[in-house]
């Protein structure tokens, strides 16, 4: 089993997104570095548009993730309602 990972800015814009990821991926582990947060999780991470919207209290398009993203490891799958990262082992 390998970790997938996503690294996000540690700023106001990304705060709700980070919280949503942590809630929806209970096996994830977050590492805080200067200016950024790296979230690792075995096999896959899923981010639901809905969960982010509940966190930030406004509508959010999955595309907006580009404003907060720094780096990732894994294969990406993006659609209107979710953003997922996974390995194909």
């Amino acid at each position: 089993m390998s970790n997938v990972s996503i690294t996000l800015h540690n700023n106001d814009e990304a705060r709700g997104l980070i919280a949503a990821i942590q809630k929806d991926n209970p096996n994830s582990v977050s590492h805080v570095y200067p200016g950024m947060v790296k979230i690792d999780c075995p096999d896959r991470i899923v981010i639901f548009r809905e969960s982010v919207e509940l966190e930030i209290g406004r509508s959010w398009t999955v595309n907006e993730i580009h404003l907060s993203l720094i780096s990732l490891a894994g294969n990406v799958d993006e659609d209107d309602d979710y953003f997922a990262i996974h390995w194909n082992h």
Partner: protein
Amino acid sequence: MRMMIILPFIGIIERETTMNVQKKISLKDRYRILTRGLDWETSYQPMGKVFPDVGFEGIKIRNWDDFNDPFRLTMDAYWRFQAEKERKLYAVLDSFSQNNGQTAITDGRYVNTLKLFLTGISPDEYMAHRGFAHVGRQIPNAGLRISAQMQALDELRHAQTQIHTIGQYNKHFSGLHSFRRMHDRVWYLSVPKSFFDDAVTAGPFEYMVAIGFSFEYVLTNLLFVPFMSGAAYNGDMATVTFGFSAQSDEARHMTLGLEAIKFILEQHEDNVPIVQHWIDKWFWRGYRVLTLVAMMMDFMLPRRIMSWKDAWDIYFNDAGGALFGDLARYGITLPKYVDVPAKEVNRLSTEAWSIFYQYTHAAAFHTWLPTDQEMDWLSASYGPDWDRLYRPRFLHWRQMEKEGHRYYNNALPQLCQVCQIPMAFTEPDDPTRVAFRDTVYRGERYHFCSDGCKNIFDHEPEKYVQAWLPVHQIFQGNCGGASLDQVLDWYGIEKGVDNMDYAGSPDERTWKEWEAMRGRVAG
């Protein structure tokens, strides 16, 4: 209401939703509309003439339509997000300049890492822009072309924002005034320059594997994270900000690189050995360029973030393992010579910094010997062998300085024909012997620093015999003249200002004045 969400690889998930579900065109549909039907079979000219570069590398594509960029970013969204990133970045740069942020760094020596970055890396951001523009032009698939075009624009943005950011330091420090000219001419800058020249003169598929995959996916974290965390630890907020702004494009680049390589591998099994060789080659090329980063981390940052060894463990060993596990199902293996960096890890930065110390008179940044405290950090990071093999060298040079005979190497070094680094690396299994490899091709002998570089040459000798090697060019009289002074003039290095040790430099004077000023304000 309840909603069913179908996730590939995961299955169907049912969730309670509080949101109104609106009817609009879905992300997937929008991307399909953007990328399908944008191409057509040309009739006035044969397709092979319209896309001449796509055939000569031996890559077989059965169905171009199989490529999809999973980000499915449309142009309007791209422009909106990039504009937002620029607005945020320039707000920070403006306040940095208004508040004289350059006075808040840890030490004047720190600026030398920015000199290395601006002269070594930023011009290659521009070359990356040209490379992706070429790929975008040559690949007959609208999805890949749009992603390559976006990346070409991103890379241009990276070059511009780095030049703007570091320009603030150019007002106060030396060595930053002629970065483009230096990149094209100065001996050690031929290392990153020849790396990108090699990539952009390859075909579009090799370029995608070289830069899109090997560099962006496998090695980019080793370049940017050390520079940016180094900037953060040394009080350079402007560089941190441009770094993060550039990195925010990086996830898209990494994904493009990975999707492109999977696409090539899935199209035909004959592509596998070709791609494997490119992975071997560009892993080794990239690793050799990272020598400059290793040296920056271990010797140039006044406040260290982590050692080169730690960075290699975290960003190559851990992250690379999962990635190559993913590619194993195509028959792709870890790159050839992947064991060598681990063997060199304790000495790479020391061997590199020793070169620059000896040739400080020909460098566009300042050098210094590590302090006792810094040597303790090096031996703690690299173990007792570091004390046994390298501490005596630095202590010897320190003694020579004290006696008024600072050591300068006045002989021009032999360069590796492929990576262009002076032949100072030692044998993977014996750090006391310098490694030499050679190949005779058409009656001429060519020299290499390693099996990795020799292997690259032996696959494409016609390409690498053309290498512009700075030392050969000096001897041939193509670099301004036969004396050091003439060569430095031709490089654009201002003697006694840009080059030589940090101690006694105008940079040091500036820094000391600022420190004294701070002392007066505080007192």
